[in-house]
Each structure stands twice: as C-alpha cells, then as structure tokens.
C-alpha cells in the first residue's frame, strides 16, 4: 500500500463551519452579536447620522416655501462664530485667531508625534470650546455676531455639570459609606438611597419648585424660623442656580451612592483587618484602601453622572422653564425650545454640539480609567 501523502490539513472555511453547525467561538460571538448590532445601528447610529445630516440643512417647518436646502456648516458658523460679524466685535477677532492658532499647534504636535492623536483631538476641542466660551461671554457687546444664547446655554450647562457632579459625590460617598455600615438602621439608609433615585425627575423638579417658593415654600419658612431672610430662590439668577443644583444633587446622589455601595461591598474585609493589625487609623484605612479600590466604581458613577448632567433638561425645566431670564437655560432646554420653534435644522446643530460635549467628556474619562493599562 503506497503511502499517500496525507491530505494537508485545511481549516474548514467560515461558511462550511457554519453549515456543519460547528462555528468557532469567534464566529459564534459574531453571529450572536448581529441582532444587537442591527438594533443598535437602527436606533442609535442611524438617528445620530440623521441628526448630523439634518444639521447641515436649512429646515424650518414654518417656512416650507424655502424647502430643505443644503447649507453646509452655516448653522455651526452661526452657533460658534456668528454669520453677521459687525465691526464692534473686531477686537474679539484676536481671540478667535488665538483659538485657531492653538488648535493648529496641537495638530502640528500630533503630526510630529509629540502628542498622541487622541490627546491632540481632545485638547483641540477643549481649546476651541474655552475660546468660544470666552468670546461668547460679552453679553453687552453682542450685536448679531454670534449666538450669545448658545454660549449662555453652554456655560450654564458646564456650571451645572461641575457643581452638581461634585455635589452628588460629596453627598453620595458618605451615603454609601453609611449604608455599608452594619447597623440596625441600615435598611433605613438603603431606602433613603433608593427613593430619590426611583422618583421621576420632573416630579422632583415640581416638588422642589414648591419647596423653594418664596412666599409659601418650606425652605424659606425654615430659614425664617432660624432668623434668616431667605433669598428669592427662583426669581433671581444666582439663587436659582443654587436651587437647581441642590435639587439635582438630591435627586442624583442616590444613584452615585448605589454604585459606590456596590464597589464598597466588593472590597475584601481582610485588607482592613491587615491594616488594623498594622495600626492604621480609620482615616488612613479610608485613604489607602477604600478610595483606591473604589476607583473603578467612582469612574463608572462619574461617567454616568456627568453624561446625565451635560444633558440636564428635566429639573431646571420643571422648576422655572429655564428662567429666570435664561439663568437655567441648559443646552438641552435650548435644543427643546428651538425644536418647538420648528427650526429643526438649527436644533439639530445644537444637538450635535451637545453630543460632541458628551463624547469629549466620555473619551477623557475613559482615558483616565485606562491610564494604567
């Protein structure tokens, strides 16, 4: 019997493996992902693409005669730099040029390999936004040279984000620590953690608008009993900002607390025991064990909290509809108001701005989380 060379082993092809019902793990994974990917594409990527496309078109439903012409970046120009620059705004040109120069420098750095590309991208976005914020912050001088209302909404959004995220961690972390302590009252703390989280935000807004009401509200009643004259919470810009942030912190620190509580419970008890044997104080244990081991949970809570903060709409809208004046008009509220004015093209451009902000923050956080890898 002649020895035949054995058939060179060939891996069965993709389709053959599928047909014979013997897919590799990777194939199986891919197949199982397809439905979810399709659904995601349909409900997420397609609408995002639609909004991007729409933002490049003129579309006002109360001016149907003008149709839906393609206008390129005109909306963005109006939003960021204005289309109708007057000579009064001449001196601001310098800031614009500086911003462009900064962005160009960053890109040059990226090209030369000094900076990593994603880093350059993030810093470009930050430079342009900060420059824009600076340029927009001249309400008295605004002619029609830029959309001052956009930059107002932008800074309101940033302010609410910074203040309410910091606030919800300041309140949420102690809540989580408290809920993690073995005690007869633990159930009470846990319920207190769950209730604000489970309440609809609009309801929270309406409720707190009542609490902060100047004449009939509980807050000023309590302050009055303590001999303090309460401010006009919702009728003045600055107190309104405080009131909104207090409300948002109340409503969202529970969420932060819950995520941190889950993180706390996964920390190995023996670490604390070892530290105690070594004579570490309570504070030292917190700094050296709890906080570092909590970092992944903090990151998760931070991302979700910041994203919802950037998209803040419900609480300020329910409290004052974005007022007094435009003191609480976040980007989310501005998008909604523009949509209701039927200017769908510009509303889409504003929504894209909101999207870019969220994206930039997420990328920044992700880089921070994976910094060690």
């Amino acid at each position: 019997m002649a020895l035949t060379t054995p058939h060179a082993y060939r891996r069965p092809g993709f389709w053959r493996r599928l047909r014979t019902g013997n897919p590799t793990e990777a194939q199986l994974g891919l197949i199982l992902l397809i439905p979810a990917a399709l659904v995601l594409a349909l409900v997420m990527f397609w609408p995002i693409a639609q909004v991007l496309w729409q933002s490049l078109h003129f579309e006002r439903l109360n001016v149907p005669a003008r149709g839906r012409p393609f206008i390129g970046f005109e909306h963005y120009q109006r939003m960021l730099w204005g289309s109708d620059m007057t000579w009064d705004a001449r001196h601001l040109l310098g800031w614009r040029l500086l911003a462009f120069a900064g962005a160009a420098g960053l890109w040059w750095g990226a090209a030369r390999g000094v900076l990593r590309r994603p880093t350059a991208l993030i810093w470009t976005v930050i430079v342009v936004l900060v420059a824009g914020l600076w340029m927009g912050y001249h309400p008295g001088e605004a002619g029609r040279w830029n959309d001052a209302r956009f930059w107002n909404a932008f800074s309101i959004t940033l302010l609410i984000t910074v203040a309410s995220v910091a606030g919800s961690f300041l309140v949420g972390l102690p809540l989580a620590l408290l809920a993690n302590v073995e005690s007869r009252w633990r159930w009470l703390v846990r319920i207190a953690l769950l209730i604000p989280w489970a309440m609809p935000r609009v309801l929270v807004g309406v409720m707190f608008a009542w609490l902060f009401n100047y004449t009939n509200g509980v807050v000023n009643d309590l302050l009055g009993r303590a001999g303090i004259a309460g401010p006009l919470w919702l009728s003045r810009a600055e107190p309104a900002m405080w009131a909104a942030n207090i409300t948002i912190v109340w409503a969202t620190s529970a969420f932060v607390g819950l995520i941190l509580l889950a993180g706390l419970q996964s920390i190995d008890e023996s670490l604390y025991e070892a530290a105690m044997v070594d004579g570490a104080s309570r504070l030292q244990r917190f700094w050296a064990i709890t906080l570092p081991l909590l970092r992944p949970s903090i990151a998760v809570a931070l991302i979700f909290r910041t994203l919802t903060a950037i998209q803040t709409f419900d609480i300020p809208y329910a409290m004052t509809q974005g007022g007094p004046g435009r003191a609480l008009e976040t980007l989310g509220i501005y998008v909604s108001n523009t949509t209701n004015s039927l200017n769908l093209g510009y509303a889409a451009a504003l929504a894209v701005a909101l999207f870019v902000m969220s994206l930039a923050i997420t990328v920044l956080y992700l880089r921070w989380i994976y910094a060690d890898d």
Partner: protein
Amino acid sequence: MRRTLALIAALALVASGLAQTPLKVFIGGQQRPDVIGPLLEQFNAENPDIVATFEVGGATSDVQQQYLNTVLTSRSGELDIFLIDVVRPAQYAASGWAEPLNHFFDSEAAMMAYLEDFLPGPIEANLVDGTLYALPAFTDAQFLYYRADLLEKYGFEPPTTWEELKSMALTIQQQEGDPNLQGFNYQGFQGEGTICTFLEVLWSAGGNWVDEDGNVTLVTPEAQRTMAWYEDTLASGITVPNIAEMSTDLSRQQFQAGNVVFMLNWGYAWAHFQGNSPQDTVVAGKVGVAPLPAFEGFDSATCIGGWQWAINPYSENKDAAWRLLEYLASPDSQRVLAVEASNIPARESLYTDPAVLTAAPHFGDFYDVIVNARSRPVTPFYNDVSEAIRYPMNAFFARQLSADEALQEMQRGVEEALDF
C-alpha cells in the same frame, strides 16, 4: 355550524368596520375630557356611519403643541381633529398643518354667512388671508379679578386706571394690615402668560408691538411707560418680589387662598374660585370681574385666548371630520361646553342664551371684555416672537435686565424673529 357562525361574525365585523369611519380627536387634559366625551358619544349616536373617539395629552398649551409638533412633523394621519391655541392658526397655515376649510362651503358668501354668529376676535385669528383654517371651540380673555368684599368694605368701585388700582391696592393692604396680602398679582414667569402681561399694559398706553407698516415698535414712550408701571408695582410693594416665578396657575391659587386683592387672569379661574377646584377656596362669592384698567385717556385692552378645532390635512377622513367639526362648533355643543365646563362661548347668540346665563351668570359680565380682546402677534413665527418678548420681561422681573435693556432686547429679538 360553529364555523359558519364565526364566519358570519367575522364578516359582520369587517362590514361594520367598512361602514363606519373612525375619527380620532385630540384634546388637552385642561379641556375637560369629561365634557367632550359625552359630546362625542352623542355625535356617534346621531351619525351611525362614524365612530369618533378622543385622545387626551398634555395639560398646558405648550405641552399640547409639542405633542402636535411630533405628530404633524411626521405627517401622521393618526389624529383627524385637534384643538389648537388661538395663537397658532397663522403658523399652522404656513406649515400646511391645518386643512383649509373653504372648500367645505358652497361659496365664499355661504362661509361668511356661517361665520357671522361667531365673535370677531377668534374668526380674525382663524382666517389667514381669506382662508379659513379652524373653527372656534371656545374663547377666552384676561380679566381683572378683584375681591368684591374688600372693595366694598372700603367703598371702592373697580378701578378704571392703573393709578387707581395702585392707590386702592395700597389702601387696602395698609388698612388690612396682613403682610401676606398682595395688592396686585399678574404673570411674570417664563411662559405664555407673561407676553400678555406686557402687551395688555402696552395697549392700554396706546402702544403696540408693531406699527401699521410692520415695523417693530418696542423701544417707544408707550413701551417705556409700560415698564415704568411694572417697576412701580414692585417698588410700591403692591406686587410680591418673586413675580418672576408667578405662573398662570400659581396666580390663580394665591388669589383663591385669599392672598390677593387684584389679579390679571384667564376665564378658567372663575369656576375654581366658586368651588369647582382641586384646592380649597376662601373667595367663593367674593370675586368680581372687570375689564382691565388703562392709562388715563386710553382704552382698556386685553389678550384674546381660547381654542380652535382644526382638521389634520394628513387625515384620510376629511369629509367625516368636517361633519364632526361642524357639530363641535355648533351652538348646541358650545352651549354644553359653556354650561358644563364653564368654557366661554365663541358664538354671540349664547351670551343671551337663558341656559348659559343660568349656569354661568358671570358670562354676561365677561362679554364686554371679550369683544374688545386683542390678538397677540399673528405670525407663523409665533414661538420666536413670544420667546423674544417673554424672555426679556422675565429677566426684567428677575432684575437681570433694566427696563431699557429689556425693551432693546425685545426689539432686537422680535426683529430677528420676523426678519427672514
């Protein structure tokens, strides 16, 4: 046998489905579904070939409009008839969101004859360049509500000028000695009521937001006088300092709790004051209604309100929808709305109707105010114009803009909204 029966039943279902035209009506939660429901049931009984049902959504003009924005932007024919605010027909006409109604009449003359019985204000809003886009369901206006018991106690007649109002309010506040008693309450919040707050006083100073040639006229002596008056209400203490958060319904609740002497508000407040309200009332039988005051030598003026029935142009059953529309705008239906929902009739004849006057004797007092009510800006860009006026007004009440800054901001904003 059973199969035959099932088949017959199925056929009957199909046949009835074919024979009966379904109609869907959209109203807001504030428009008394409990009264509209029976009205539709009666229509269905009289018209066996149509089945009209209704859908309720939103409890404020803004929210109802947002829902309709979504439905109409997607060109959905899901709703056949909807109620729209009196400020909307011009925008609906421009967007093609309301079916023109002219072709349902035999002739132009027949249409004008049909419209004869309606009040002129709502018809003016619904006729855009000679095309009729909606029929009035009921009308409304802002009134001066006052505490009749307090005015009587101090021997005052309802004020006819703003100065009179101020001095009466101050006297009553001082004499009553109640620190919670507000002399004059109106709407200063970031919302639709605030544009009327501004326009009503502007009109009563002889001004308007626009002149005959269509130029925006908001930085004028009349407008400055308006702002000076509101400045005065705050400085003199007849108005609470938190007026920037005063919404329409918050005003109503404060008056109802007995904390207000004079208030500007819409017709709906009356029924609340008499006890038809989720909140307790301490002012039942103590409330009077009068036309708004004016400045010396000028006429009183008020904002027109109310709601209109329109047909969805994307509806597939427009002929049936028109029959329902005619029924809903008929004197009989408006009588039901007036008697059972205290909706102010849009038909002249109902102001002398015994059934209406028995159920709502105050409508007699309302009539003079209503026929003189004026329209807020009639424009397809109503949202932008409204925003351009109410934002500076609200910022003025919140002390973010001075009176002059607020007027300049209004002028700029309204010009930008109309400049296209």
